[in-house]
């Protein structure tokens, strides 16, 4: 297991480095420069470029960037004067993370449950109902679901607050809107996986042992069926955490989304670079955790490498 974890860790670190490098150069490829729209004289502009180190050759900038990054320093925002990127992240990320993680948890639990229900009632009403929800969930994007929910539950029924992020009742609709797609994906995956596992020989062995249907389902079928679902947990986490931007806009949640959009519009190199790097590293870490969970559940993986 230690070997497996070290191996995963090494892979994660290399991925992180590749990611950081690509992002660094991609941002520099954007046309224009950060001070283009400012009504400033060329002298002041040159001054600012020098101040931020943007006049140096790109490889020097790259090295400086990496050095700062290792210290955990994402640099200054070029536009929000006197604010470090770290401060922006610290202020806004907790909201995004809160929403994202709620969505991951909800999508996983509800998706897996729905998949199990569908598989156990194969080709019966519950199955059709669950798969109908799954199809709707996959095909309707969050910017449609969001306003729809607001209209029904806030405007019409007056059950939930329309927007903002001030308590549990505020989290319900955004979490649901954000997670629906992933929930549907996981439900379908879990259903397919359950139906695959039920035909395997070890289920026959479990039956021949005289176990009750309940024991067979929980101890043998679900436990094996959930493995493919766990493998998509990494990508799903990524989708949901980055997907928060849209939902944040709809529900006026003070997360990172707003800063991201502004950062790109303003060519705020260090803000965009900092936030992207931060997100990337966060997702790599999340994937690393998923890998370890997978190793814990599937003993074959743990030993293999």
């Amino acid at each position, binding site marked *: 297991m230690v070997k497996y974890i070290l191996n995963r860790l090494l892979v994660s670190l290399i991925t992180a480095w590749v990611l950081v490098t690509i992002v660094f150069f991609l941002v520099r490829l954007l046309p224009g420069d950060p001070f283009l729209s400012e009504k400033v004289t060329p002298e002041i502009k040159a001054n600012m470029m020098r101040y931020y180190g943007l006049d140096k050759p790109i490889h020097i900038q790259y090295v400086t960037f990496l050095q700062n990054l290792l210290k955990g320093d994402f640099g200054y925002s070029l536009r929000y004067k006197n604010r470090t990127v770290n401060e922006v992240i610290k202020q806004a990320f907790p909201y995004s993370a809160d929403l994202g993680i709620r969505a991951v948890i909800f999508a996983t639990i509800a998706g897996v449950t729905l998949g199990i229900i569908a598989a156990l009632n194969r080709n019966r009403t519950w199955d059709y109902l669950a798969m109908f929800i799954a199809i709707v969930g996959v095909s309707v994007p969050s910017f449609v679901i969001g306003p729809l929910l607001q209209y029904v539950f806030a405007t019409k029924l007056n059950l939930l607050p329309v927007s903002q992020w001030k308590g549990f009742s505020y989290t319900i609709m955004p979490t649901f809107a954000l997670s629906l797609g992933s929930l549907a994906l996981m439900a379908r995956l879990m259903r397919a996986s359950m139906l695959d596992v039920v035909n395997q*020989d*070890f289920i026959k062995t*479990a039956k*021949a042992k005289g176990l*009750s249907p309940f024991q067979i389902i929980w101890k043998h079928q679900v*436990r094996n069926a959930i493995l493919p679902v766990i493998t998509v947990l990494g990508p799903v986490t990524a989708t949901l955490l980055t997907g928060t931007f849209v939902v944040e806009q709809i529900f006026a949640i003070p997360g990172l989304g707003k800063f991201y959009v502004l950062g790109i519009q303003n060519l705020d190199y260090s803000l965009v670079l900092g936030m992207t790097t931060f997100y990337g590293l966060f997702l790599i870490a999340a994937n690393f955790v998923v890998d370890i969970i997978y190793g814990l*559940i599937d*003993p074959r993986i743990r030993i293999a490498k």
Partner: protein
Amino acid sequence: MERLLEVKDLQVSFKTYAGEVKAVRGVSFHVDRGETVAVVGESGCGKSVTMQAIMRLIPMPPGVIKNGTIIFDGKDITKLSEKEMEHIRGSEISMVFQDPMTSLNPTMKVGAQIAEGLIKHQKMHPSKAREKAIEMLKLVGIPNAEKRVDQYPHEFSGGMRQRAMIAIALACNPKLLIADEPTTALDVTIQAQILDLMRDLQKKLNTAIIIITHNLGVVANLAQRVLVMYAGKIIERGSLDEIFYNPRHPYTWGLLMSVPTPELDKNKRLASIDGTPPDLFAPPVGCAFAARCEYAMRICYEKYPEDFPVSDGHSAACWLLHPMAPKVKPPVGKGVTL
């Protein structure tokens, strides 16, 4: 000897889109306590389905048990509720399957898989069941059982997995063990070890065994009696010696002739039975083997041959045994060595 299992006129069908597959068409046989019965016959003749019916493991739908009684230890299994059946499976009748690579749960420790049945049937405390699991692993000849008990199936070799399967099957000391081609998936040396193990354990535990196999060597090694199945029916039955040295059904002759022997002439081809088994959607009215039988007579196509007794416990369903049938000299019998 005392009867343990008595199957009478068992008929099992599968309802498919293409029609009804009559997989088992009236099978009757018995097993006594502590004896070993081998079931042979070519692929698709209904061996597994018959055994699954005894365990009530036939998927329904599409399967239906159309007729028959299965008396096990005095109870008619076909009349038990699903709950009552759970107490018989794994406790009184156990099963070992063909492929040990896929028959164990990959995400569960081997020991836990053995313990499961004990906890369920004997209400054993988990720690006690674990000890018993170690004991069972030792019994089936797995070295280092204390360590192996906490390992996962993928850490076991194929032969060891089949030993573990046998340990699972025998943990609750069942009266009947059904082994459905337990050695087919293993290589030859391991096959021999598993057979030795089964024979030893049977002596120790006095478990009756039904063994399904394609391998007549296995039959000769293990069984006291043999049932030969063809197209959903038992066409010949008898003691091991009767079947090997005095076979009466042309299909059994064919089976025996298709066994390679050390003395086989290098220039001669191994005999095979030409043709294919009949369509089980619409089995013939007469003898199901008629289309492939070189001795077939007119009556063979028109009327199903009843079981003609040959000697005590030996009978065959073939018109050649009718007193009025022409005398045919069997191409095999005395000469078969395995």
